[in-house]
Protein backbone atom coordinates (compact mmCIF):
# COMPACT_ATOMS: atom_id res chain seq x y z
CA UNK A 1 0.00 0.00 0.00
CA UNK A 2 1.10 3.52 -0.68
CA UNK A 3 2.69 4.90 2.50
CA UNK A 4 0.61 8.06 2.23
CA UNK A 5 -2.65 6.12 2.00
CA UNK A 6 -1.47 3.99 4.85
CA UNK A 7 -0.90 6.99 7.08
CA UNK A 8 -4.17 8.61 6.11
CA UNK A 9 -6.08 5.43 6.87
CA UNK A 10 -4.34 5.04 10.16
CA UNK A 11 -5.10 8.61 11.09
CA UNK A 12 -8.79 8.18 10.34
CA UNK A 13 -8.98 4.97 12.30
CA UNK A 14 -7.28 6.57 15.24
CA UNK A 15 -9.77 9.40 15.19
CA UNK A 16 -12.52 6.83 15.54
CA UNK A 17 -10.71 5.27 18.47
CA UNK A 18 -10.45 8.67 20.08
CA UNK A 19 -14.17 9.32 19.71
CA UNK A 20 -14.85 5.93 21.18
CA UNK A 21 -12.64 6.68 24.18
CA UNK A 22 -14.37 9.99 24.83
CA UNK A 23 -17.79 8.44 24.55
CA UNK A 24 -16.70 5.75 26.95
CA UNK A 25 -15.97 8.41 29.56
CA UNK A 26 -19.45 9.83 29.20
CA UNK A 27 -20.99 6.38 29.33
CA UNK A 28 -19.18 5.81 32.61
CA UNK A 29 -20.70 9.07 33.84
CA UNK A 30 -24.19 8.02 32.76
CA UNK A 31 -23.62 4.63 34.27
CA UNK A 32 -22.82 6.18 37.62
CA UNK A 33 -26.07 8.11 37.55
CA UNK A 34 -28.24 5.22 36.48
CA UNK A 35 -26.72 2.92 39.10
CA UNK A 36 -27.34 5.55 41.69
CA UNK A 37 -30.98 5.87 40.65
CA UNK A 38 -31.51 2.13 40.52
CA UNK A 39 -30.01 1.94 44.00
CA UNK A 40 -32.31 4.57 45.42
CA UNK A 41 -35.32 3.09 43.68
CA UNK A 42 -34.48 -0.27 45.14
CA UNK A 43 -35.35 1.15 48.53
CA UNK A 44 -38.93 1.39 47.39
CA UNK A 45 -39.34 -2.20 48.56
CA UNK A 46 -39.02 -1.06 52.12
CA UNK A 47 -40.72 2.30 51.75
CA UNK A 48 -44.31 2.82 52.77
CA UNK A 49 -46.51 4.86 50.46
CA UNK A 50 -47.56 7.29 53.17
CA UNK A 51 -46.57 8.00 56.72
CA UNK A 52 -49.92 6.83 58.09
CA UNK A 53 -48.96 3.31 57.14
CA UNK A 54 -45.92 3.46 59.28
CA UNK A 55 -48.07 3.99 62.31
CA UNK A 56 -50.47 1.34 61.09
CA UNK A 57 -47.68 -1.14 61.08
CA UNK A 58 -46.88 -2.80 64.29
CA UNK A 59 -43.44 -3.51 63.06
CA UNK A 60 -41.40 -1.44 65.39
CA UNK A 61 -38.13 -1.22 63.57
CA UNK A 62 -39.65 0.44 60.55
CA UNK A 63 -40.75 3.30 62.74
CA UNK A 64 -37.40 3.30 64.43
CA UNK A 65 -35.27 3.91 61.37
CA UNK A 66 -37.72 6.49 60.12
CA UNK A 67 -38.05 5.39 56.56
CA UNK A 68 -38.88 8.02 53.99
CA UNK A 69 -42.22 7.76 52.32
CA UNK A 70 -42.51 7.16 48.59
CA UNK A 71 -42.97 10.79 47.43
CA UNK A 72 -39.78 11.75 49.26
CA UNK A 73 -37.93 8.91 47.62
CA UNK A 74 -39.18 9.87 44.17
CA UNK A 75 -38.14 13.45 44.72
CA UNK A 76 -34.65 12.32 45.52
CA UNK A 77 -34.44 10.43 42.21
CA UNK A 78 -35.80 13.19 40.00
CA UNK A 79 -32.76 15.48 40.06
CA UNK A 80 -30.47 12.58 39.14
CA UNK A 81 -32.81 11.69 36.31
CA UNK A 82 -32.78 15.27 35.08
CA UNK A 83 -29.00 15.36 35.23
CA UNK A 84 -28.83 12.50 32.72
CA UNK A 85 -29.47 15.15 30.11
CA UNK A 86 -26.02 16.57 30.78
CA UNK A 87 -24.33 13.32 29.83
CA UNK A 88 -26.63 12.99 26.83
CA UNK A 89 -25.62 16.47 25.76
CA UNK A 90 -21.95 15.63 26.12
CA UNK A 91 -22.43 12.45 24.09
CA UNK A 92 -24.44 14.19 21.41
CA UNK A 93 -21.58 16.66 21.05
CA UNK A 94 -19.10 13.80 20.56
CA UNK A 95 -21.01 11.69 18.08
CA UNK A 96 -20.39 12.62 14.45
CA UNK A 97 -23.47 13.47 12.44
CA UNK A 98 -25.42 10.40 11.32
CA UNK A 99 -23.27 7.98 13.26
CA UNK A 100 -25.50 7.49 16.25
CA UNK A 101 -26.15 3.85 15.46
CA UNK A 102 -22.49 3.19 15.02
CA UNK A 103 -21.75 3.88 18.66
CA UNK A 104 -25.14 3.24 20.20
CA UNK A 105 -24.26 -0.14 21.65
CA UNK A 106 -21.79 1.51 23.96
CA UNK A 107 -24.43 3.12 26.12
CA UNK A 108 -27.49 0.96 25.46
CA UNK A 109 -27.41 -0.79 28.78
CA UNK A 110 -26.98 2.41 30.82
CA UNK A 111 -29.70 4.09 28.84
CA UNK A 112 -32.06 1.20 29.47
CA UNK A 113 -31.55 1.61 33.19
CA UNK A 114 -32.28 5.31 32.81
CA UNK A 115 -35.51 4.47 30.96
CA UNK A 116 -36.41 2.05 33.68
CA UNK A 117 -35.83 4.68 36.36
CA UNK A 118 -37.91 7.26 34.51
CA UNK A 119 -40.71 4.75 33.98
CA UNK A 120 -40.64 3.65 37.61
CA UNK A 121 -40.74 7.23 38.87
CA UNK A 122 -43.69 7.91 36.59
CA UNK A 123 -45.50 4.82 37.73
CA UNK A 124 -44.95 5.61 41.40
CA UNK A 125 -46.12 9.18 41.07
CA UNK A 126 -49.01 8.88 38.62
CA UNK A 127 -49.61 5.16 38.18
CA UNK A 128 -49.29 5.66 34.44
CA UNK A 129 -47.04 4.33 31.73
CA UNK A 130 -44.52 6.87 30.59
CA UNK A 131 -44.47 7.29 26.83
CA UNK A 132 -41.36 7.03 24.71
CA UNK A 133 -41.40 10.71 23.72
CA UNK A 134 -41.69 11.64 27.39
CA UNK A 135 -38.67 9.56 28.38
CA UNK A 136 -36.80 10.92 25.40
CA UNK A 137 -37.60 14.44 26.60
CA UNK A 138 -36.22 13.69 30.05
CA UNK A 139 -33.03 12.08 28.78
CA UNK A 140 -32.27 14.22 25.77
CA UNK A 141 -33.35 17.01 23.53
CA UNK A 142 -35.22 16.91 20.25
CA UNK A 143 -32.57 18.87 18.37
CA UNK A 144 -29.90 16.18 18.88
CA UNK A 145 -32.09 13.72 17.06
CA UNK A 146 -29.56 12.70 14.44
CA UNK A 147 -26.82 12.34 17.03
CA UNK A 148 -28.53 11.04 20.09
CA UNK A 149 -32.02 9.60 20.38
CA UNK A 150 -33.91 6.96 22.27
CA UNK A 151 -34.52 3.79 20.26
CA UNK A 152 -37.76 1.84 20.64
CA UNK A 153 -35.73 -1.19 21.58
CA UNK A 154 -34.09 0.53 24.53
CA UNK A 155 -37.39 1.97 25.71
CA UNK A 156 -38.95 -1.50 25.66
CA UNK A 157 -36.01 -2.97 27.53
CA UNK A 158 -36.52 -0.33 30.19
CA UNK A 159 -40.19 -1.26 30.49
CA UNK A 160 -39.38 -4.92 30.95
CA UNK A 161 -37.03 -4.00 33.79
CA UNK A 162 -39.92 -2.04 35.25
CA UNK A 163 -42.17 -5.10 35.17
CA UNK A 164 -39.44 -7.19 36.79
CA UNK A 165 -39.22 -4.68 39.58
CA UNK A 166 -42.99 -4.30 39.97
CA UNK A 167 -43.41 -8.01 40.54
CA UNK A 168 -41.05 -7.67 43.47
CA UNK A 169 -42.86 -4.58 44.66
CA UNK A 170 -46.18 -6.46 44.63
CA UNK A 171 -44.76 -8.89 47.17
CA UNK A 172 -43.02 -6.29 49.30
CA UNK A 173 -45.94 -3.88 49.31
CA UNK A 174 -47.97 -6.54 51.07
CA UNK A 175 -45.24 -6.94 53.63
CA UNK A 176 -45.45 -3.22 54.26
CA UNK A 177 -49.19 -3.45 54.69
CA UNK A 178 -50.17 -1.93 51.37
CA UNK A 179 -52.77 -4.30 49.98
CA UNK A 180 -54.00 -2.13 47.13
CA UNK A 181 -50.66 -1.82 45.41
CA UNK A 182 -50.51 -5.40 44.05
CA UNK A 183 -53.93 -4.94 42.45
CA UNK A 184 -52.80 -1.73 40.78
CA UNK A 185 -49.60 -3.39 39.67
CA UNK A 186 -51.50 -6.34 38.29
CA UNK A 187 -53.69 -4.14 36.11
CA UNK A 188 -50.78 -2.03 34.96
CA UNK A 189 -48.55 -4.96 34.11
CA UNK A 190 -51.28 -6.83 32.27
CA UNK A 191 -51.93 -3.87 30.03
CA UNK A 192 -48.25 -3.59 29.34
CA UNK A 193 -48.01 -7.29 28.66
CA UNK A 194 -50.90 -7.06 26.22
CA UNK A 195 -48.93 -4.36 24.45
CA UNK A 196 -45.82 -6.51 24.28
CA UNK A 197 -47.73 -9.46 22.83
CA UNK A 198 -48.62 -7.26 19.87
CA UNK A 199 -45.01 -7.08 18.81
CA UNK A 200 -43.37 -9.44 16.36
CA UNK A 201 -40.11 -9.90 18.13
CA UNK A 202 -37.04 -11.49 16.67
CA UNK A 203 -35.00 -14.01 18.54
CA UNK A 204 -32.96 -11.40 20.35
CA UNK A 205 -32.46 -10.30 23.93
CA UNK A 206 -35.68 -8.31 23.89
CA UNK A 207 -37.55 -11.45 22.92
CA UNK A 208 -35.91 -13.48 25.66
CA UNK A 209 -36.66 -10.86 28.24
CA UNK A 210 -40.24 -10.61 27.01
CA UNK A 211 -40.56 -14.36 27.44
CA UNK A 212 -39.58 -13.99 31.07
CA UNK A 213 -42.41 -11.54 31.71
CA UNK A 214 -44.88 -14.35 32.21
CA UNK A 215 -43.12 -15.35 35.41
CA UNK A 216 -43.47 -11.83 36.73
CA UNK A 217 -47.14 -11.87 35.86
CA UNK A 218 -47.59 -15.21 37.57
CA UNK A 219 -45.89 -13.90 40.68
CA UNK A 220 -48.13 -10.83 40.79
CA UNK A 221 -51.21 -12.98 40.20
CA UNK A 222 -50.31 -15.17 43.13
CA UNK A 223 -50.06 -12.16 45.39
CA UNK A 224 -53.43 -10.88 44.18
CA UNK A 225 -54.87 -14.33 44.71
CA UNK A 226 -53.57 -14.51 48.27
CA UNK A 227 -55.00 -11.08 49.03
CA UNK A 228 -58.43 -11.78 47.53
CA UNK A 229 -58.64 -15.14 49.21
CA UNK A 230 -58.13 -13.53 52.58
CA UNK A 231 -60.27 -10.56 51.64
CA UNK A 232 -57.37 -8.27 52.44
CA UNK A 233 -57.93 -6.19 49.40
CA UNK A 234 -61.31 -5.58 47.89
CA UNK A 235 -60.69 -4.77 44.25
CA UNK A 236 -63.22 -2.43 42.74
CA UNK A 237 -65.53 -4.08 40.31
CA UNK A 238 -64.31 -2.21 37.25
CA UNK A 239 -60.76 -3.23 37.96
CA UNK A 240 -61.72 -6.85 38.02
CA UNK A 241 -63.43 -6.39 34.69
CA UNK A 242 -60.50 -4.84 32.97
CA UNK A 243 -58.29 -7.54 34.31
CA UNK A 244 -60.14 -10.30 32.54
Amino acid at each position, binding site marked *: *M*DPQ*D*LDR*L*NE*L*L*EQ*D*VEIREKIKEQVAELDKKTRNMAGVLNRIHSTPTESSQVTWLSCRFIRLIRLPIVPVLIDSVRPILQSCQDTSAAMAALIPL*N*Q*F*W*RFKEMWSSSLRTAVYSAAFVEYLSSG*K*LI*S*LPDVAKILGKEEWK*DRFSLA*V*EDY*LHGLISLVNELSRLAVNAVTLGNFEEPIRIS*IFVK*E*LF*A*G*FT*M*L*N*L*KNDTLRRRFDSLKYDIKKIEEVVYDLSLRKLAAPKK*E*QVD*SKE
Partner: protein
Amino acid sequence: MDTDKTTAVVDIFDEFRKDIDEHNDRRERLIKASRDVTNISKKVIFLLHRIMTERGNDTRDPFKHAAERGRNGLREAQVLYAQMKHEIQGDEFWRYHRAVSPGLQEYIEALSFAHYLEHGTLVTYAQVQDTLSDDSGVPYLPLPKEDYLLGLSDLTGELMRFAISGIARKGGRTKATEVCAFVRQCKSDFERFTPVVRELSKKQSVTTQSLEKIEDAVYAIVVRSSEYDLPPEAVDDIVAQSISSFGTGSGVDRSKRGRRDPGSGDEYEGEY
Protein backbone atom coordinates in the same frame (compact mmCIF):
# COMPACT_ATOMS: atom_id res chain seq x y z
CA MET B 1 -60.53 5.83 32.62
CA ASP B 2 -59.16 2.37 32.73
CA THR B 3 -60.41 1.58 29.25
CA ASP B 4 -58.87 4.82 28.02
CA LYS B 5 -55.54 3.80 29.35
CA THR B 6 -55.83 0.37 27.77
CA THR B 7 -56.43 1.82 24.33
CA ALA B 8 -53.53 4.15 24.85
CA VAL B 9 -51.10 1.34 25.64
CA VAL B 10 -52.39 -0.74 22.75
CA ASP B 11 -52.11 2.21 20.41
CA ILE B 12 -48.59 2.95 21.51
CA PHE B 13 -47.55 -0.63 21.01
CA ASP B 14 -49.24 -0.71 17.65
CA GLU B 15 -46.83 2.01 16.57
CA PHE B 16 -43.93 0.02 18.00
CA ARG B 17 -45.04 -3.01 16.09
CA LYS B 18 -44.94 -1.10 12.83
CA ASP B 19 -41.58 0.28 13.76
CA ILE B 20 -40.12 -3.10 14.73
CA ASP B 21 -41.61 -4.88 11.73
CA GLU B 22 -40.23 -2.29 9.40
CA HIS B 23 -36.82 -2.58 11.01
CA ASN B 24 -36.78 -6.37 10.81
CA ASP B 25 -38.02 -6.42 7.23
CA ARG B 26 -35.41 -3.95 6.16
CA ARG B 27 -32.69 -5.86 7.94
CA GLU B 28 -33.85 -9.05 6.24
CA ARG B 29 -33.82 -7.38 2.83
CA LEU B 30 -30.34 -6.04 3.39
CA ILE B 31 -29.03 -9.39 4.58
CA LYS B 32 -30.44 -11.02 1.45
CA ALA B 33 -28.95 -8.40 -0.83
CA SER B 34 -25.67 -8.66 1.01
CA ARG B 35 -25.68 -12.41 0.57
CA ASP B 36 -26.24 -11.91 -3.14
CA VAL B 37 -23.25 -9.59 -3.22
CA THR B 38 -21.19 -12.25 -1.46
CA ASN B 39 -22.25 -14.82 -4.05
CA ILE B 40 -21.48 -12.58 -6.98
CA SER B 41 -18.09 -11.72 -5.51
CA LYS B 42 -17.23 -15.36 -4.85
CA LYS B 43 -18.13 -16.22 -8.42
CA VAL B 44 -15.92 -13.42 -9.66
CA ILE B 45 -13.03 -14.70 -7.56
CA PHE B 46 -13.47 -18.20 -8.98
CA LEU B 47 -13.72 -16.76 -12.44
CA LEU B 48 -10.45 -14.90 -11.98
CA HIS B 49 -8.70 -18.04 -10.78
CA ARG B 50 -10.13 -19.94 -13.71
CA ILE B 51 -9.02 -17.42 -16.27
CA MET B 52 -5.54 -17.40 -14.80
CA THR B 53 -5.20 -21.18 -14.85
CA GLU B 54 -7.06 -21.77 -18.11
CA ARG B 55 -5.37 -19.39 -20.44
CA GLY B 56 -4.48 -21.78 -23.21
CA ASN B 57 -4.13 -20.40 -26.65
CA ASP B 58 -5.62 -17.09 -25.69
CA THR B 59 -3.37 -14.43 -27.09
CA ARG B 60 -4.84 -11.60 -25.02
CA ASP B 61 -2.97 -10.34 -22.00
CA PRO B 62 -4.38 -12.73 -19.41
CA PHE B 63 -4.07 -10.26 -16.54
CA LYS B 64 -5.88 -7.45 -18.31
CA HIS B 65 -8.44 -9.87 -19.63
CA ALA B 66 -9.12 -11.34 -16.19
CA ALA B 67 -9.37 -7.95 -14.54
CA GLU B 68 -11.82 -6.78 -17.15
CA ARG B 69 -14.07 -9.77 -16.80
CA GLY B 70 -13.85 -9.55 -13.03
CA ARG B 71 -14.87 -5.93 -13.07
CA ASN B 72 -17.74 -6.75 -15.39
CA GLY B 73 -18.91 -9.42 -13.00
CA LEU B 74 -18.76 -7.06 -10.08
CA ARG B 75 -20.99 -4.56 -11.86
CA GLU B 76 -23.87 -6.79 -10.82
CA ALA B 77 -22.93 -6.22 -7.19
CA GLN B 78 -22.69 -2.50 -7.76
CA VAL B 79 -26.23 -2.53 -9.12
CA LEU B 80 -27.34 -4.21 -5.90
CA TYR B 81 -25.67 -1.51 -3.83
CA ALA B 82 -27.35 1.14 -5.94
CA GLN B 83 -30.65 -0.50 -5.11
CA MET B 84 -29.81 -0.76 -1.42
CA LYS B 85 -28.86 2.89 -1.31
CA HIS B 86 -32.21 4.24 -0.19
CA GLU B 87 -32.40 1.73 2.66
CA ILE B 88 -29.10 2.77 4.16
CA GLN B 89 -29.28 6.52 4.01
CA GLY B 90 -27.44 8.52 6.65
CA ASP B 91 -27.50 6.96 10.04
CA GLU B 92 -29.44 3.96 8.78
CA PHE B 93 -26.23 2.69 7.26
CA TRP B 94 -24.69 2.25 10.68
CA ARG B 95 -27.83 0.71 12.05
CA TYR B 96 -27.59 -2.03 9.44
CA HIS B 97 -23.85 -2.10 9.10
CA ARG B 98 -23.64 -5.62 10.44
CA ALA B 99 -26.06 -6.84 7.81
CA VAL B 100 -24.08 -5.36 4.92
CA SER B 101 -20.56 -5.78 6.23
CA PRO B 102 -19.89 -9.39 5.10
CA GLY B 103 -21.00 -8.67 1.54
CA LEU B 104 -18.91 -5.54 1.42
CA GLN B 105 -15.80 -7.39 2.53
CA GLU B 106 -16.29 -10.11 -0.05
CA TYR B 107 -16.85 -7.48 -2.71
CA ILE B 108 -13.64 -5.71 -1.74
CA GLU B 109 -11.80 -9.01 -1.82
CA ALA B 110 -12.96 -9.71 -5.38
CA LEU B 111 -12.33 -6.17 -6.54
CA SER B 112 -8.86 -6.08 -5.04
CA PHE B 113 -8.02 -9.42 -6.65
CA ALA B 114 -8.99 -8.12 -10.09
CA HIS B 115 -7.08 -4.94 -9.37
CA TYR B 116 -4.00 -6.83 -8.29
CA LEU B 117 -3.98 -8.99 -11.41
CA GLU B 118 -4.00 -5.92 -13.59
CA HIS B 119 -1.82 -3.51 -11.65
CA GLY B 120 0.11 -5.59 -9.15
CA THR B 121 -0.92 -3.19 -6.38
CA LEU B 122 -3.54 -2.91 -3.68
CA VAL B 123 -6.70 -1.15 -4.67
CA THR B 124 -6.93 2.09 -2.69
CA TYR B 125 -9.74 3.09 -0.39
CA ALA B 126 -10.75 5.88 -2.76
CA GLN B 127 -10.85 3.50 -5.70
CA VAL B 128 -13.15 1.11 -3.87
CA GLN B 129 -15.42 3.94 -2.76
CA ASP B 130 -15.44 5.12 -6.34
CA THR B 131 -16.86 1.83 -7.59
CA LEU B 132 -19.58 2.15 -4.97
CA SER B 133 -20.74 5.55 -6.13
CA ASP B 134 -23.14 6.65 -8.84
CA ASP B 135 -22.11 8.40 -12.03
CA SER B 136 -21.98 11.80 -10.41
CA GLY B 137 -19.74 10.46 -7.65
CA VAL B 138 -22.31 10.29 -4.88
CA PRO B 139 -21.50 7.24 -2.73
CA TYR B 140 -24.16 4.57 -2.30
CA LEU B 141 -22.84 4.08 1.18
CA PRO B 142 -19.96 5.38 3.29
CA LEU B 143 -17.37 2.63 2.96
CA PRO B 144 -16.13 1.79 6.46
CA LYS B 145 -12.35 1.74 6.71
CA GLU B 146 -12.61 -1.42 8.76
CA ASP B 147 -14.41 -3.31 6.01
CA TYR B 148 -11.93 -2.04 3.47
CA LEU B 149 -9.03 -3.43 5.49
CA LEU B 150 -10.74 -6.69 6.32
CA GLY B 151 -11.63 -7.23 2.66
CA LEU B 152 -8.03 -6.62 1.66
CA SER B 153 -6.87 -8.99 4.34
CA ASP B 154 -8.89 -11.75 2.69
CA LEU B 155 -7.14 -11.04 -0.58
CA THR B 156 -3.95 -12.66 0.70
CA GLY B 157 -5.67 -16.05 0.81
CA GLU B 158 -6.70 -15.71 -2.81
CA LEU B 159 -3.19 -14.64 -3.77
CA MET B 160 -1.83 -17.74 -2.10
CA ARG B 161 -4.13 -19.91 -4.24
CA PHE B 162 -3.24 -17.89 -7.29
CA ALA B 163 0.49 -18.18 -6.70
CA ILE B 164 0.51 -21.87 -5.94
CA SER B 165 -1.87 -23.04 -8.64
CA GLY B 166 0.00 -20.97 -11.20
CA ILE B 167 3.43 -22.10 -10.16
CA ALA B 168 3.67 -24.96 -12.59
CA ARG B 169 3.05 -22.86 -15.65
CA LYS B 170 5.18 -20.63 -17.75
CA GLY B 171 6.15 -17.57 -15.78
CA GLY B 172 4.38 -18.94 -12.74
CA ARG B 173 7.54 -19.16 -10.69
CA THR B 174 8.45 -15.55 -11.16
CA LYS B 175 4.85 -14.62 -10.41
CA ALA B 176 4.90 -16.70 -7.24
CA THR B 177 8.01 -14.87 -6.07
CA GLU B 178 6.31 -11.57 -6.80
CA VAL B 179 3.16 -12.57 -4.95
CA CYS B 180 5.27 -13.76 -2.06
CA ALA B 181 6.88 -10.34 -1.71
CA PHE B 182 3.54 -8.60 -2.12
CA VAL B 183 1.76 -10.66 0.52
CA ARG B 184 4.67 -10.13 2.86
CA GLN B 185 4.32 -6.40 2.35
CA CYS B 186 0.55 -6.60 2.99
CA LYS B 187 1.11 -8.47 6.18
CA SER B 188 3.50 -5.89 7.55
CA ASP B 189 1.33 -2.97 6.34
CA PHE B 190 -1.74 -4.33 8.04
CA GLU B 191 0.03 -5.08 11.28
CA ARG B 192 -0.25 -1.49 12.53
CA PHE B 193 -4.03 -1.58 12.14
CA THR B 194 -4.58 -4.58 14.35
CA PRO B 195 -5.00 -2.56 17.55
CA VAL B 196 -7.71 -0.35 16.06
CA VAL B 197 -9.61 -2.79 13.86
CA ARG B 198 -11.22 -5.64 15.67
CA GLU B 199 -11.10 -8.99 13.83
CA LEU B 200 -8.06 -7.94 11.87
CA SER B 201 -5.63 -9.83 14.08
CA LYS B 202 -7.50 -13.06 13.41
CA LYS B 203 -7.26 -12.39 9.69
CA GLN B 204 -3.61 -11.51 10.08
CA SER B 205 -2.85 -14.99 11.33
CA VAL B 206 -4.62 -16.45 8.29
CA THR B 207 -2.46 -14.17 6.17
CA THR B 208 0.59 -15.50 7.96
CA GLN B 209 -0.44 -19.05 7.14
CA SER B 210 -1.01 -18.17 3.49
CA LEU B 211 2.30 -16.42 3.37
CA GLU B 212 4.07 -19.45 4.77
CA LYS B 213 2.52 -21.63 2.10
CA ILE B 214 3.72 -19.30 -0.62
CA GLU B 215 7.15 -19.11 0.96
CA ASP B 216 7.43 -22.87 1.08
CA ALA B 217 6.41 -23.11 -2.56
CA VAL B 218 8.90 -20.46 -3.57
CA TYR B 219 11.54 -22.28 -1.57
CA ALA B 220 10.71 -25.46 -3.47
CA ILE B 221 11.24 -23.66 -6.76
CA VAL B 222 14.59 -22.30 -5.74
CA VAL B 223 15.89 -25.57 -4.31
CA ARG B 224 14.72 -27.72 -7.19
CA SER B 225 15.97 -25.47 -9.94
CA SER B 226 19.35 -24.84 -8.36
CA GLU B 227 20.15 -28.39 -7.46
CA TYR B 228 19.46 -29.94 -10.81
CA ASP B 229 20.26 -28.47 -14.11
CA LEU B 230 16.95 -29.53 -15.62
CA PRO B 231 14.88 -28.20 -18.49
CA PRO B 232 11.87 -26.11 -17.35
CA GLU B 233 9.32 -28.83 -18.17
CA ALA B 234 11.02 -31.25 -15.83
CA VAL B 235 11.08 -28.65 -13.10
CA ASP B 236 7.35 -28.16 -13.63
CA ASP B 237 6.81 -31.82 -12.78
CA ILE B 238 8.91 -31.69 -9.68
CA VAL B 239 7.28 -28.56 -8.41
CA ALA B 240 3.83 -29.89 -9.14
CA GLN B 241 4.63 -32.86 -6.97
CA SER B 242 5.99 -30.85 -4.12
CA ILE B 243 3.07 -28.47 -4.00
CA SER B 244 0.34 -31.04 -4.40
CA SER B 245 0.65 -31.59 -0.66
CA PHE B 246 -0.82 -28.14 -0.08
CA GLY B 247 -4.20 -29.32 -1.23
CA THR B 248 -5.09 -25.95 -2.57
CA GLY B 249 -5.96 -26.92 -6.08
CA SER B 250 -2.33 -26.82 -7.00
CA GLY B 251 -1.35 -28.58 -10.16
CA VAL B 252 -4.98 -28.41 -11.07
CA ASP B 253 -4.15 -28.60 -14.74
CA ARG B 254 -2.42 -31.91 -14.36
CA SER B 255 -4.37 -33.79 -11.80
CA LYS B 256 -7.76 -32.76 -13.22
CA ARG B 257 -8.90 -31.92 -9.74
CA GLY B 258 -10.83 -28.96 -11.04
CA ARG B 259 -11.69 -27.97 -7.49
CA ARG B 260 -12.69 -24.47 -8.52
CA ASP B 261 -15.11 -25.42 -11.19
CA PRO B 262 -16.03 -29.05 -11.54
CA GLY B 263 -18.31 -28.25 -14.48
CA SER B 264 -15.53 -26.98 -16.63
CA GLY B 265 -13.42 -30.10 -16.25
CA ASP B 266 -14.06 -31.34 -19.75
CA GLU B 267 -13.41 -28.30 -21.85
CA TYR B 268 -10.46 -27.87 -19.62
CA GLU B 269 -8.79 -31.14 -20.40
CA GLY B 270 -9.05 -30.45 -24.09
CA GLU B 271 -6.77 -27.53 -23.79
CA TYR B 272 -3.85 -29.48 -22.53
